[in-house]
């Protein structure tokens, strides 16, 4: 017995909550774009000459696509996962040959007439589909070294292609898959080590090496004193210490020879070492001023001076949160954070209730991608993370990103709506 696709709304398994959160974010984002790019010559919110009018168009297009995604059979997604992935990889490669114009230093846009299209936005869900498909296949266990290598390759290839397009921000997003894979059995040690190394890197730039080494050695010594009966653990700690020293002393080399000057500056500004409000720190400084000047209740809709007078660069795209912070104050911005965190937690809840492994892996990938976007975007806007140009999903202005994220989310909703059938089918078999 098979249920038809058009019944999904009746089965009671359709997750209206996540759709409401989605709609709330999209509409709030649209109002924020209206505030940020408000042009008194075209005050109509639907004016197609302005970003807010075009965003409305994109929202409409997203709704249509979402509906299409929901109406398609749920089996389409696992079935076409590799094909979609292949097409996107091809698109990413062809960018190098077809694109002549750079956007904000990055070479990542297809331009057809006045219509611009960014394949990296679609690479995210495509990669998620491919990884889910691969890992959910029969006989595949994440414990195999070979499986792990292929899995990493699946997201490292698009990541490398995006990085080669000079779009560091989007490439960084692909590290979300490491977070997602932890759920499928990726060593927690690896996750911990990665985070630890990144933290150490920043500390090595910030703190004098000798001090850092001394502090780390003391901590290691204390731990060894506590666990001295456990030989294995003692060696692990010593190994970690040696590794840490390696990282610390290689930082200077990496910092000076691998990272580009603009990345140096961004890191230094984030670490508070450079107070260069006219140069590199300008974005973050003006962003902080915008948010900080919002106070508790904000300046009110369309009343933000920082954003309306264009003091914040990229204010309708990457720095859209400034508008929220300035016009709705602490109440509004804390509200947004809570809304977003609720969204992320809801995604994990959805993931955990899936019977199908494909569904669950895909859900974790989706949650991790949104998480990374949210963390990096808000982190840079409030000045606790270096400036990395990535959008805040559903808020930032941009057709490609809105469409990409909508497809990504609604595939999950479509899969989730069918979770009972998966159960039934499991029994039928």
């Amino acid at each position, binding site marked *: 017995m098979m249920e038809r696709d058009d019944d999904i709304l009746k089965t009671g398994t359709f997750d209206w909550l996540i759709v409401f959160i989605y709609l709330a974010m999209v509409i709030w984002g649209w109002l924020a774009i209206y505030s940020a790019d408000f042009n008194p010559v075209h005050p109509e919110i639907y004016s197609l000459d302005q970003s807010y009018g075009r965003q409305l168009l994109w929202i409409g297009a997203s709704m249509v696509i979402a509906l299409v995604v929901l109406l398609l059979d749920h089996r389409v997604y696992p079935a076409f996962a590799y094909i979609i992935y292949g097409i996107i990889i091809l698109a990413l490669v062809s960018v190098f040959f077809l694109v002549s114009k750079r956007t904000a230093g990055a070479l990542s846009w297809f331009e057809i007439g006045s219509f611009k299209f960014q394949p990296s936005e679609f690479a995210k869900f495509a990669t998620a589909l491919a990884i889910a498909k691969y890992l959910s296949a029969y006989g595949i266990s994440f414990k195999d070294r070979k499986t792990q290598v292929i899995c990493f390759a699946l997201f490292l290839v698009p990541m490398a292609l995006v990085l080669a397009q000079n779009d560091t921000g989007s490439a960084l997003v692909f590290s979300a898959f490491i977070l997602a894979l932890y*759920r499928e059995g990726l060593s927690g040690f690896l996750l911990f080590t990665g985070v630890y190394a990144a933290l150490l890197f920043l500390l090595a730039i910030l703190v004098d090496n000798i001090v850092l080494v001394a502090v780390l050695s003391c901590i290691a010594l204390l731990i060894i004193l506590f666990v001295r009966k456990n030989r294995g653990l003692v060696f692990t700690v010593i190994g970690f210490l040696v590794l840490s020293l390696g990282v610390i002393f290689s930082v200077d080399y990496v910092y000076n020879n691998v990272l580009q000057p603009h990345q140096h500056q961004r890191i230094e500004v984030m670490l508070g070492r450079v107070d260069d409000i006219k140069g590199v720190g300008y974005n973050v400084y*003006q962003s902080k001023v915008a948010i900080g*000047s919002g106070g508790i209740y904000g300046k009110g809709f369309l009343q933000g*001076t*920082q954003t309306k007078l264009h003091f914040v660069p990229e204010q309708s795209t990457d720095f859209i949160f400034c508008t929220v912070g300035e016009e709705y104050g*602490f109440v509004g911005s804390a509200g947004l954070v809570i809304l977003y965190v609720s969204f992320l937690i809801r995604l994990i809840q959805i993931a955990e209730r899936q019977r199908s492994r494909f569904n669950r892996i895909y859900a974790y990938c989706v949650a991790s991608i949104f998480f990374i976007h949210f963390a990096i975007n808000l982190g840079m806007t409030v000045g606790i993370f270096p400036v990395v140009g990535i959008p805040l999903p559903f808020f930032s202005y941009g057709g490609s990103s809105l469409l990409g994220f909508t497809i990504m989310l609604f595939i999950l909703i479509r899969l989730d709506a069918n979770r009972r059938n998966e159960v039934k089918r499991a029994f039928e078999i």
Partner: protein
Amino acid sequence: MTSSDNRHYLYYAIFGLLGFVLIVRLFFLQVLDESYVEIARDNARREIVQFPPRGLIYDRNGELLVFNDVIYDLMVVPRQVKDLDTMAFCTLLDITRQEFEQKMNKAIVMNGRIRSSVFEKQISPRAFASFQEQLYNFTGFFIEIRTDRHYKTSSMAHVLGNIGEISEKRIKESNGYYRQGEYIGLNGIERSYENLLRGTKGVRNMLVDVHGREIGPYNNGLLDTPSVSGTNLYVTLDAFLQSYGEKLLQNKIGSVVAIEPNTGEILALVSSPGYDPNLFVGRERGSNYMKLLKDSLKPLFNRPLNAPYPPGSVFKIIESLIGQQEGTLFPHTKYHCNMGYRVGNHTVKCSHRHYSPIDLLGAIEQSCNPYYCHVFRAIMDQPKFKSTAEAYENWYKHMQAFGIGTQLGIDLYGESKGILYPYTYFDKLYGKGSWRSTNIISLSIGQGEVGITPLQMANVVACVANRGYFKTPHILRYIGDEKKVPEQFVKKRYTLVDTQYFEVVCQGMARVVNNGTARVAQIKGIQVCGKTGTAQNPHGDDHSVFIGFAPLENPKIAIAVVVENGGFGSRWAAPIASLMMEYYLNGHQPTTRPDLEKRMLEGNLIK
């Protein structure tokens, strides 16, 4: 897979932690830190300073002396300059292509591309008119309207002073009132009464975007403050008398100071050679200033306030008064002249023959040097003093009470206090306790270690005319059109000599004019009192000096004239003083002595 089943809690933990960190951060930014509110406000607000018109300056008769005129500065915002027809632009301004590039670069170097800078200062009204019509062709350029000072008169530059760009030092002293590039009174009355003349700056707040474009009024103009016009001032000078004095002193180096004795109001303050205040107006300001600065005759030097001369006979007047006050001199006191007063191998000679012995009135009339040596020694060698130093200290206090060796406190910038040493100077010179009145005998006739400015001379005369007191000589007569009298100059300042002793000196001075050395100063129908002087000048011909007042009773004018290298006082200084007194007292009527006037006007002492 039990460990794997618990792994999802990590995600909840990470998401929750991130949310917490962000909210805490937002709390710090938005709730705890209030500085951002101000920064955002300053970002979006531009203060446009509204400069009020500066107060006008009138003379004592209500003649307008200084007024404001509009000037136009051509400003540029380099970044906004687009599609400029450079040829047409240069033609309009009458500059070359290279000059255009230079000016543009200078503007960019000074203030950057976004902020406005002066492209060309003070463009002509004709260029302004054509610009007004074509300004829309020259985007990025605009005209800023300022006011500058203009002068109705070509005289009294030293008194009026001028305005110019403020110096770094005075910006600091002003506690933030002035900003770079603003105009301020540099000297003269423009400087002394800057606070009254400048008025109060207003502020208009404009909403600006990131490119500095003005969007509209900030906060509906609620924070704006209107500017308040500067206060009009009336100076004590008589513009006619002043320019008459300047004319009489033309081609001569010297000073005239005329004071109304009972008020201390300065009627004329001539410094010759002077300059035309209009030289400091407009685009040629800088080069004119350099020219004046390099002139060997030092026209910028304000002589009446700054040039110390040996007081000569002026001191005989004061000695006569001090002697009487000290009880060592009486009108009937007689001394022999002997054509000189011997001190050791040095003799103070008398300048001309006269009857002998002579009493006080006669001594004043004949300006007898030996007489005053006696008078001086009598004052100094009184038995009540334990030492010469003590005697000198007493004498010194008398002198200071007459305003000698001190700044009188005139309301003009840069007044010199002249030269008058305290006793410690002589202690050092001769050794403590080992100097006598004979060592400083030349002070008795106003020679030696002493120098007084023409202003101080005139003040002494005013003091004699008032029979014992003076009021601080000053330039400001009334404040504002309601004619408020400045309070600081009302107080009478008494000398240490009682009023009763002055009359004999006045009579003596009348005799000088009637029978003595200053007969040339006589004015028909008016009893003039005066005293000529010949200040010894080691560098060339003696300076011609005259002090005097008129009329004898109820004096209306006290005057001091110094003509450098003019020889005897009666030769130049006395006639000039007399002509000026006559002109003033007769209500600016032409003189009754045209020959004398002609001789004075044509006299040329500058070779």
